């Protein structure tokens, strides 16, 4: 893998993380980050939609007339969102219920339309796939991080998939008895996002300072 390709893949993870740096897709990030499993489910749904919409936009970039490109992208994205909705409804009904309104709202998630407009319609399919994976995983990391902090402090649990005898819920001893309730409330999500964003801008400015 050449350096440039590697850059396309990895920049979504940290350097251009869609949530913390580009500030895209904030509504689902805060809306579904009440439990870790919801964050992972949302991340998986976004990766799927982002991957296929990037592939199709990249394939059709020479066919779609420039003047109607945004509506065309929205239709492509909406088609894949519908697929995700139906698959989740059929196979993961509990996550489908937990994500609720935020699942159809992937259509208007600015990350996906943003990548179609800013990257996929100018680049080859290979690069678009790498870009979609990088951005999608970056989004998943961000949502899961916020969900982890909110769930651990807000209710003292970590909810994952139930596998075999494991119920899927990890209890954290002290925090489970005395949770910091504000983290699981709407206000806590906004406050946490503010502090995380401040941390990331402090971190990137410090890093930029040492490089130059």
């Amino acid at each position: 893998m050449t350096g440039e390709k590697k850059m396309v893949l990895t920049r979504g993870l940290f350097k251009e993380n869609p949530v913390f740096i580009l500030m895209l897709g904030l509504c689902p990030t805060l809306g579904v980050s009440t439990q870790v499993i919801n964050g992972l489910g949302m991340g998986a749904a976004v990766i799927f939609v982002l991957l296929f919409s990037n592939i199709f936009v990249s394939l059709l970039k020479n066919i779609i007339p420039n003047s109607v490109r945004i509506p065309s992208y929205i239709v492509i994205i909406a088609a894949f969102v519908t697929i995700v909705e139906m698959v989740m409804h059929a196979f993961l009904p509990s996550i489908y219920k937990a994500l609720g309104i935020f699942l159809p709202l992937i259509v208007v998630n600015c990350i996906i339309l943003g990548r179609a407009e800013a990257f996929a319609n100018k680049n080859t399919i290979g690069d678009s796939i790498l870009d979609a994976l990088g951005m999608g995983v970056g989004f998943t990391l961000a949502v899961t991080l916020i969900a982890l902090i909110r769930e651990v402090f807000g209710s003292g649990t970590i909810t994952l998939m139930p596998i075999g005898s494991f119920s899927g819920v990890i209890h954290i001893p002290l925090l489970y008895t005395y949770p910091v309730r504000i983290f699981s409330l709407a206000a806590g999500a906004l406050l946490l996002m503010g502090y995380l964003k401040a941390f990331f801008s402090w971190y990137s400015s410090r890093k930029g300072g040492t490089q130059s």
Partner: protein
Amino acid sequence: MTYAAIFITYIFISNFILTQFLGLCPFIGVSKNSESAIGMGMAVTFVMGIASIITYLVYHFLLVPLNLTYLQTLSFILVIASLVQFVEMIIQKNSPALYQALGIFLPLITTNCAVLGIAVMNITEGYNLMESFSAGVAAGIGFTLVLVLMSNIRERMELHPVRKAFKGVPIAFISGGLMALAFMAFDKSLLTNLLG
């Protein structure tokens, strides 16, 4: 639910921005000065009201009879996108003054999750036509209220020393969080106290 209850619910109790996290992008992006906040709020309220009616009609008179309810997301976003375009054209033609005020905000509304959000919510809550319209307008008013409050806070904050890392977006989020704490005072008991 009575109409008064719908209005109180969507403006205060389950405010779109502060409790449901819908429309956070304009909340952060357009709240730098109060004039554009008012413009954006009015444009969103207007589009949400009309979109509620049209998506209701599309769902109940097109998708349900044809058994195509799984196309809900696809058809709603198309309806909203064309509606926004249509509204933009009408305003431009008939009221240049209003277009001056709202024009630049209209294209942004298509990708505002609040509009698609209220359309989907009206269906899941099972509202009838008038209830959907009221919910749309009420949610828009709630959105405008918080956006304008936020823009005033941010205008004042310009004059205060804020640490470099917190400047701009982070402090906006933290103020939003504190506002959400204040809005927690509005809960279901407000409805029972006011309307019995």
